[in-house]
């Protein structure tokens, strides 16, 4: 037997998850806690213990941003890099921290103590700038807090010794409606639904016309019915709490302060479809919430609202486990989420078959958004007809909006569907607004002439993000930020998204550096069209949205970045000679190149 130092850590981890390969991602997350990264020998040991090909384990470890197959600092700091965090000064704070720690972004300090980098939106836009330290989120960063963080790192204080209130999230609920003002006690909604019977309850959901709040707007009852009717009796309910869309955070608030509504919603779904197993897939950025969520689950088991014979109904057995994500926006796509739940790379599946017939481990599965599930409690309490009577004819009920950016009162707003963009702007105290990005990076950019449009599936659909930009902002920079987000988050499965998002990001970089030409706008539009039409999943097809909207509604912001030449190189011509200048020691005129073509005599 080898004296592998990882053998015992791996054995513990594998034992904890009963050596089930579908827990591979969870095992990797756990295993990484020891050293903050996953050395090659750890992956080898884990693969051997599970009887999996090592390459498969490496493939999973290499997919997720928060799993590290190369050493990172013992303190690993990741600044949220959404445009909203940037507007709140994140870049200057990151530079300050790097300067204080004598560190370049992306590098590990020589003593291995600390590394600083950026990450995708951490869901704290209403209280940013924010960062993650070893996976745990800290919001409300300012210079004083950054300096204190640097001290704590230098003193090598464990995170548990850092001020506990740093790790708490504010809810910032600014407007309550039916859901956030719901006075029900845990179990009330479930009892009501149990009294209706499974069939009667599903009929109420039909009557409510509830549609999915994750963005796509699929009718919930139709999804549930298809799952219930699928031949395999082993059904699964999944709560999609992978709230990764930049600028959205309303699910975080629901999980933080209304977790009972969410869990009860999952139980209501299980009652309708006959599921015995439930998963709450929690994005890694929200792991601060996990202990409280586990406590809610435990309390509900004790109360008889989870476990065997729920509410005293023989045969209604259902329980929920929490799975953590590890930094992969694409896992918000339901089939990628299922792959991730099965311990694999988060690559979206080919559809059909759909999850309602072939989901988690091939079982009929409903995947619902956090807010959708919470809304189910209202339907159980008030009845489907009462729910359907609110909102608009095609968008029943209310919508939680995550408002951030240039406004006086960022936070969560619950409005009935049909509210106009202007009403939301008035409510949050936004003045002199240049644009609103509704639905996140994948959403739609609205110019002032559109502010009377309505938030509703039939007009401006949204998963919840509502980012406000005032007249001091550059909408080119907004789209530039979003395009980099998509390039970073592309799973890389299909050609158009893998290469197209990288190329689009490169081209916008070229414009940002002042090297753009009219030809580049044509290239951007061609790439946009390809991404929209040929991508395998919604990530790729939505990736060009901010640029397409931007070129249509904020074209001067792009044209400002163009030279008058009909073509300009993307690479830095003079910079390309730097290395040769260095090695030859030359600096004469002929050792330089102008970026643009000189006018001909």
């Amino acid at each position: 037997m080898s004296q592998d130092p990882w053998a015992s850590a791996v054995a513990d981890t594998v034992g904890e998850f009963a050596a089930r390969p579908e827990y591979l991602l969870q095992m990797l997350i756990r295993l990484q806690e020891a050293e903050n990264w996953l050395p090659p020998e750890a992956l080898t040991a884990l693969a051997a213990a599970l009887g999996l090909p090592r390459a498969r384990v490496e493939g999973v470890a290499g997919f997720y941003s928060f799993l590290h197959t190369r050493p990172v600092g013992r303190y690993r700091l990741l600044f949220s890099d959404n445009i909203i965090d940037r507007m709140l000064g994140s870049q200057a704070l990151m530079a300050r921290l790097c300067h204080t720690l004598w560190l370049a972004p992306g590098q590990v300090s020589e003593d291995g103590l600390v590394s600083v980098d950026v990450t995708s939106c951490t869901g704290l836009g209403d209280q940013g700038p924010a960062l993650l330290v070893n996976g745990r989120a800290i919001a409300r960063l300012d210079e004083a807090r950054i300096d204190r963080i640097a001290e704590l790192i230098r003193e090598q204080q464990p995170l548990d010794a850092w001020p506990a209130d740093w790790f708490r999230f504010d809810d910032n609920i600014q407007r309550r409606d039916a859901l956030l003002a719901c006075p029900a006690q845990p179990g009330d909604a479930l009892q009501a639904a149990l009294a209706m019977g499974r069939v009667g309850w599903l009929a109420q959901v039909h009557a409510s016309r509830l549609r999915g709040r994750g963005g796509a707007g699929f009718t919930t009852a139709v999804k549930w019915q298809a799952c219930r009717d699928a031949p395999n009796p082993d059904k699964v309910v999944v709560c999609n709490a992978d709230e990764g869309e930049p600028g959205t955070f309303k699910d975080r608030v629901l999980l933080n302060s209304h977790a009972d509504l969410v869990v009860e919603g999952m139980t209501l779904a299980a009652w309708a479809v006959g599921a015995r197993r439930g998963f709450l897939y929690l994005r890694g950025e929200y792991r601060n919430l996990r202990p409280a969520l586990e406590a809610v689950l435990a309390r509900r088991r004790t109360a008889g609202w989870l476990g065997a014979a729920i509410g005293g109904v023989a045969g209604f057995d259902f329980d929920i486990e929490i799975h953590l994500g590890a930094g992969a926006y694409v896992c918000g796509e339901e089939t990628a989420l299922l792959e991730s739940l099965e311990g694999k790379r988060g690559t979206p599946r080919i559809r059909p078959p759909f999850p309602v017939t072939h989901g988690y481990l091939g079982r009929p599965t409903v995947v619902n958004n956090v807010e959708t599930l919470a809304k189910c409690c209202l339907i159980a309490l008030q009845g489907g007809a009462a729910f359907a009577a609110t909102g608009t004819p095609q968008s029943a009920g209310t919508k939680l909006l995550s408002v951030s950016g240039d406004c006086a009162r960022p936070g969560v707003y619950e409005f009935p569907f049909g509210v106009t963009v202007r009403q939301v702007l008035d409510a949050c105290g936004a003045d002199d607004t240049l644009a609103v990005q509704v639905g996140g990076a994948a959403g739609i950019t609205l110019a002032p002439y559109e502010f009377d449009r309505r938030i509703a599936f039939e007009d401006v659909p949204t998963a919840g993000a509502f980012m406000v930009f005032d007249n001091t902002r550059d909408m080119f920079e907004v789209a530039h930020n979003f395009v980099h987000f998509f390039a970073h988050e592309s799973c890389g499965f299909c050609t158009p998204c893998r290469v197209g998002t990288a190329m689009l990001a490169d081209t916008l970089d070229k414009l940002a550096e002042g090297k753009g030409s009219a030809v580049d706008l044509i290239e951007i539009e061609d790439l946009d069209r390809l991404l929209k039409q040929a991508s395998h999943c919604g990530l790729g097809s939505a990736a060009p949205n901010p640029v397409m909207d931007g070129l249509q509604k904020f074209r001067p912001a792009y044209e400002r970045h163009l030279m008058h030449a009909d073509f300009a190189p993307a690479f830095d011509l003079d910079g390309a000679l730097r290395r040769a200048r260095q090695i030859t020691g030359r600096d004469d005129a002929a050792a330089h190149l102008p970026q643009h073509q000189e006018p001909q005599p």
Partner: protein
Amino acid sequence: MSAPPKLRIATVSLAGCFGCHMSLLDIDEHVFDLLQRVELDRSPLTDLKHCGPCDIGLVEGGVCNSENVHVLREFRAQCKTLVALGACAINGGLPAQRNHLDVGRCLSAVFQSRPGMDTAEVPDDPELPLPLDKVHPIHEVVRVDYFLPGCPPSGEAIWQFLSDLLAGRTPRVAYPILHFD
């Protein structure tokens, strides 16, 4: 009806091997047809050092150094139609095989580290063009109108391509004369 005026053509080899130019000569007896319809401006065949106003510019080879950039820009400025001729002009080709190497180390390996060169310096004469850190196809430096792949494109392909251009037809290079090698 009088003969149409002759079109002016310039050709050049940047970071290439002149193979495409050899292939141009491989159009055999069509050389006579070609010379009835064109006159040559700057080209290795005329040894003119600068390019005047032209209808068509044929560029062989990729862009590997500062001189290539200047010459290519001159061609773009002077030629109404610019053609990337052959694999190197189109994707960097063989010279671009150095793109994963550090150009500084390449220079010092060639001029300093070879046996017998221990005391030598990397040449620093301002007459010598400096190499770029990477070799680029010409479309990454200037706008290019047409592309004729091949290593080299066959004489047949070049003749067909030029015939199209001279006749005012959009050049079309298709199977089986379209080749990347």
